[in-house]
């Protein structure tokens, strides 16, 4: 397949497109994991903890409460459905690494009946064991070969018992090695055996769990309530003692009675993930929960519900008795806008991905994201399409690759390629601005051109880096302003900066007005913030470090204003006292007005410093936040045409149909007068018998047909003949 579109590309470009795409995808995937790291960590802990508690139950010591309550994590994921697959994928990966190999991931499209759902669940639970744990393969060889009809809960139970006993015997033989399940590549190695259950500091044995599964905590901070018990994982063993005090007395006693339990008795829970709970048929969900709760005493099942809206949706769709069986806890995943911000920062605002996007396509992608689906997956898809269009449609993109690679390619440029570069409009205008002597050399001498291209490309890179850094600075500066004229997110500032010169834009002027009135208490943290942003970049760029130094000095001056202020401040006070002698009210008013004017004329030290600071910043912005098409060779790295992408991403079938019917010469491109056109429409309307298709259009056409027959006063057959001539 790829061979075919590669024909379109020069060989060098063909290499970079997949590279760039792969880089984008991998970056966004990594981000996916890191964005949700927090909530995943909570989830994993919850599941481990739930597994531990059910272990205790299964081992014969029936606790009095919560026997049939299935611990359930309700992960509120948001409405960006397309992204959810990826979210749960990485959750499964985490769980397999750290908690349990027995995971079933159910999707509503597989579970139209209870039977199908159970089958799917059991086959996944049992099948995955063999897949993940090659060590156990010989013992559970029966697993995958069981026939479909035999997938019952009883089979599952006996299978699980087998596993447990097998594990126990293994445990006792290889006790000295610690947990046998600790595998290489386990990401939780550093916290010891992942199956060490007592270490988990979270002991929600208290009553809230019994309250019918209603969400226990407010959504905003789902897992914060216990304060100290929720320590980072690394500290587990150290905190164990203090943590124990949090457990219920009953449990603590039990732990004291059986000191061996944590090591030998822990068995991995069976995790059942329902990706889109809202989509499940209510009766299937209901039966599934009831069946699982029946076997709760034998199987440590834990549910994870993926909910797009709110956790209430689950209760609404479940009946009383089913929702009584789940003890639900709500976890809030990060909103996808948050994820998007990271993707933009890591993919678009970096030099690591050589491809950059211009203002209009960027705005388009943002619009699609914010106004249609909120799905980062689709955003990345749009980005990929932009890349494709960029690489396929622009022959100069053979230079669009990472810096070291580019140096090689510039050296190896053929004359034809050089010509392509020379023909770029931005390069031409660059040449025209050179002195005439250089012009000739640039256009004729290969070596000079190459070296110029090299320097220009490097400059372009560093310009973009500076650009992005300054965009962040602008965002830090203006995001807290009232009404946020430039928007609160970096992405909005970026969109503005990419599409027009910032300093000239209305929005910035408005922001500037407000900045001029900013109080010191507000300005100081902003300035500190800006300095921090600049500090990150200043190592790489001279101009930014210059700005950094300048601003740092100003910050120092701002901080030391306190002493200065008192010195300056005394003289006007005397004048004011003098003027109060006037007894006339009118005069007094005038005087006061005058004084007010005078005062405003004379800025105090802070005000002058503030305007100085702003001037510095504005100057910098003016210099660097220019439109990208002012940069020579920008065509190589920047994609700046939205219409092609828009056409492919936002299908307009309806508009195309209307145009084709009402205005066919748009497609046929004949200079037809209107009459021919309508006749064409008519003939199509009649000739193609679309009873189901385009009904309204046909009626429209037929209406005209009718008119025509009235007018011409002939039979339809005649009319048709006339029409088709």
């Amino acid at each position, binding site marked *: 397949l790829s061979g075919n579109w590669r024909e379109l590309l020069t060989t060098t470009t063909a290499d970079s497109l997949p590279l760039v795409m792969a880089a984008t995808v991998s970056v966004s995937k990594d981000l996916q994991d890191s964005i949700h790291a927090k909530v995943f960590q909570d989830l994993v802990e919850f599941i481990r903890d739930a597994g531990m508690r059910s272990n205790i139950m299964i081992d014969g010591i029936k606790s009095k409460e919560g026997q049939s309550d299935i611990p359930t994590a309700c992960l509120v994921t948001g409405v960006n459905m397309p992204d959810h697959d990826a979210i749960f994928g990485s959750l499964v990966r985490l769980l397999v690494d750290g908690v349990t190999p027995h995971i079933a991931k159910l999707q509503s499209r597989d579970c139209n009946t209870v039977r199908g759902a159970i089958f799917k669940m059991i086959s996944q639970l049992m099948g995955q064991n063999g897949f993940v744990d090659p060590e156990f393969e010989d013992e559970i060889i029966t697993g995958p070969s069981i026939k479909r009809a035999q997938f019952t809960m009883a089979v599952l139970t006996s299978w699980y018992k087998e596993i447990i006993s097998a594990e126990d015997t293994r445990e006792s033989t290889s006790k000295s090695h610690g947990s046998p399940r600790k595998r290489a590549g386990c990401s939780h190695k550093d916290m010891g055996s992942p199956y060490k259950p007592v270490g988990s500091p979270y002991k929600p044995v208290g009553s809230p769990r019994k309250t019918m599964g209603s969400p226990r905590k407010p959504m905003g901070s789902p897992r914060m309530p216990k304060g100290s018990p929720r320590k980072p994982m690394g500290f587990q063993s150290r905190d164990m003692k203090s943590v124990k005090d949090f457990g219920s007395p009953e449990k603590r006693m039990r732990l004291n009675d059986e000191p061996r339990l944590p090591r030998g008795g822990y068995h991995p829970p069976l995790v059942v993930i329902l990706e889109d709970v809202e989509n499940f048929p209510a009766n299937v969900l209901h039966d599934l929960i009831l069946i699982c709760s029946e076997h709760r005493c034998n199987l440590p099942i834990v549910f994870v519900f993926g909910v797009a809206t709110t956790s209430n949706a689950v209760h609404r769709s479940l009946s009383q008795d089913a929702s009584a069986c789940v003890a639900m806890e709500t976890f809030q995943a990060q909103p996808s*806008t948050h994820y998007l911000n990271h993707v933009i920062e890591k993919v678009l605002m970096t030099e690591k991905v050589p491809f950059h996007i211009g203002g209009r396509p960027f705005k388009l992608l943002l619009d699609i994201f914010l*106004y249609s689906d909120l799905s980062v997956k689709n955003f990345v898809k749009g980005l990929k399409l932009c890349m494709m269009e960029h690489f396929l449609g622009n022959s100069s993109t053979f230079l669009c690759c990472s810096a070291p690679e580019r140096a090689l390619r510039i050296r190896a440029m053929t004359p034809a390629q050089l010509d392509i570069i020379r023909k770029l409009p931005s390069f031409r205008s660059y040449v025209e601005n050179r002195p005439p002597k250089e012009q000739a050399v640039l256009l004729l001498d290969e070596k000079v051109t190459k070296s110029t291209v090299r320097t220009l490309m490097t400059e372009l890179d560093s310009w973009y880096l500076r650009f992005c850094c300054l965009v962040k600075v602008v965002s830090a500066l203006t995001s807290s302003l009232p009404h946020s004229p430039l928007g609160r997110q970096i992405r909005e500032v970026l969109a503005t900066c990419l599409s027009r010169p910032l300093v000239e834009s209305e929005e910035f002027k408005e922001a500037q007005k407000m900045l001029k009135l900013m109080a010191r208490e507000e300005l100081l943290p902003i300035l500190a913030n800006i300095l921090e942003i600049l500090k990150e970049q200043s190592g790489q760029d001279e101009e930014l470090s210059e700005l950094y130094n300048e601003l740092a000095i100003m910050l120092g001056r701002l901080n030391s204003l306190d002493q200065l202020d008192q010195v300056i401040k005394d003289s006007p006070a005397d004048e004011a006292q003098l003027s109060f002698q006037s007894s006339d009210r009118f005069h007094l008013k005038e005087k006061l007005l005058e004084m007010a004017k005078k005062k405003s004329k004379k800025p105090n030290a802070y005000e002058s410093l503030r305007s100085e600071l702003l001037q510095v910043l504005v100057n910098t912005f003016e210099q660097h936040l220019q439109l990208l098409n002012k940069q020579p060779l920008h065509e190589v790295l920047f994609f700046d045409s939205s219409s092609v992408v828009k056409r492919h991403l936002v299908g307009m079938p*309806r508009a*195309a149909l209307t145009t084709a019917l009402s205005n066919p010469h748009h497609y046929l491109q004949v200079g037809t007068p209107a009459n021919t056109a309508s006749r064409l429409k008519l*003939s199509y309307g009649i000739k193609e018998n679309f009873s189901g298709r385009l009904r309204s259009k046909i009626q429209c056409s037929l*209406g005209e047909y009718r008119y025509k027959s009235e007018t011409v006063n002939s039979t339809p057959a005649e009319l048709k003949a006339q029409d088709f001539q």
Partner: protein
Amino acid sequence: MMPRRARTTLSVTFINDKLVDKISNGTDGKKVTPIPLSQRGRSRHRSAQTPAGDNDDLPQLEEMDEGINDVFFKPTELFEDGEDPVKGSAVFGFRTPKKKWGMLEKAGSAKMLDSPSTPKIPRSSLKHYPDSPRTPKTPRSSLKHYPDSPRTTKIPRTPNSAAKNGFRTPKSHQRSSEVFQEVTTPYNFRNRVKHRIKKIVCEEESSSEEDSDGSNYSLSESDDDDDNESKENFDDFSESFIRTPSRTPKRTPIRKTLSSSTPGKTPSRTPGKVGRGRKIKDVEMVGRSDEYFNANGDLGKVITSDHTLSRLETPRLAPDALQSILLGVTATHQAERKALIEEHRQMFPRWMTEGFSIFLYGFGSKKDLLSKFQQEYLDEYDHIVVNGFFPSLTLKNILNNITEDILDQSGSFHSIQEQLEFIEEIYSKPNAESLFIIIHNLDGPLLRGDKTQSAIAHLASITNVHLLASIDHINAPLIFDSGKMSSYNALWCDATTLAPYSEETSYENSLLVQQSGSLALSSLVHVFKSLTPNAKGIFLLLAKHQLDQKDKSNYVGLSFNDMYQRCREAFLVNSDLTLRAQLTEFKDHKLIRSKKGPDGIKNLLISLDSTTLQDFISQQELENL
């Protein structure tokens, strides 16, 4: 003039200066483009700079910690008007030509075009502007444009805008009409035009209630201000009407420059290849839900044409007759259509793009195009072709095709899910062969179901499976939700071919061919001839009764007892047994149906539509005479 509509109210919207500037600059400076002030939705999309209050009801999509009152991010790029976009109102609305003599006018103007002696003045106004092929204006709308101008002058804008627009007072009218004295228009022609316009205006007045496309015309509003002005208005109209010739040349260059100034709009489309001189411009449309609801929301005025086929004398032809007529028709614009297809062919390499499905839309059969693609590119790959329009196609067929014919897997599968999983397992391996699925009409009648769609979407999302599909139904995108859309991972391509849907529609019934009706009629006549006179009478009695009741939508049939009474009165039967025997015979020949009503009484109904029945009865009456 018609009495005023009580509902009409004048709405005033404040617009800022920039907008006013934009509007007055948008035209040639003299003519004021009317803003549809009465339409909130339209005025919003006009520009992103509409008052902030207008946008407050947009969904708040930003981070949670953000304030409530401010929406910052306006979707300018997604919703902005491209150059000359297709108007949403034109797409969503149901546009019946409402002017009664529109065709007559058209014909008249065409005649005028032919005879050189007639002044060419009305031509430009009655017809399309020849130089602006992209504006799909019906003659009606171009006519309607002119009556607008007086109205716009009377809309009280903000004082500021009024000043800027240079308020066209009657004075300015006079001035401009002086200019038009230079154009020598025969007096009688002007008179004629005047009369015609009067007529049009009256008609428009009465029909503007059902003005579906929300066009800017609302004369009545201006008349609300001053009734007595209407007479003057007519004069104004004729002046502005006749004025058009000098205006048109002014307008057209602007349009020309508009279209020619953006040739680089699709720079990357088929790079390096020389196609036709002029590339097809993209059809741009701004899909705003507002416009849809503006066009369709008002349930009170459902506008459908009653000019149905059955009102014609010979509404339907026999299949053979239609075929023979169609055979005599030579396809028009063949060269252009060929060029169109050629242009689509240049996009073929793009369709091979990895990781995306391709959805083709646009008017005309895309079957040939896809077949061409299949021949040229897919020869060495595994591929299956699915005819989605086939009336008995099931998902199982498609999957079996893949598993049996391509994967040579003869074993049966328990369920579709299982089969899907099997396919997925094979094709998601990194070294698996590519499989191409071509679906003609992804929106086919049997593929529309939710389960089928999600299964196909699932197929399309497998790594080495690639989908190319065409859609034709006007509402086809409705079957894809966001989840499916993202599994499809589709790129939309405009593939308008204007080719006949001959194969796709071969399974469907034609509107023009006489349906079962003709068959039933002939068999009816046949059976009828062999009946006894009494039996004939019984049937005719039933038929006539049914025809009398044809306007009742809930007519269930004649009850048996009534029928018996009537037959007895007409001396057709002497006992209910004979009647029953007779009815059984009718039933055996499928001439009538009997159905039990809610009250348990048998109702008798002739299962033919009323037109056929009417034909039958008139035929019988003719024979009896």
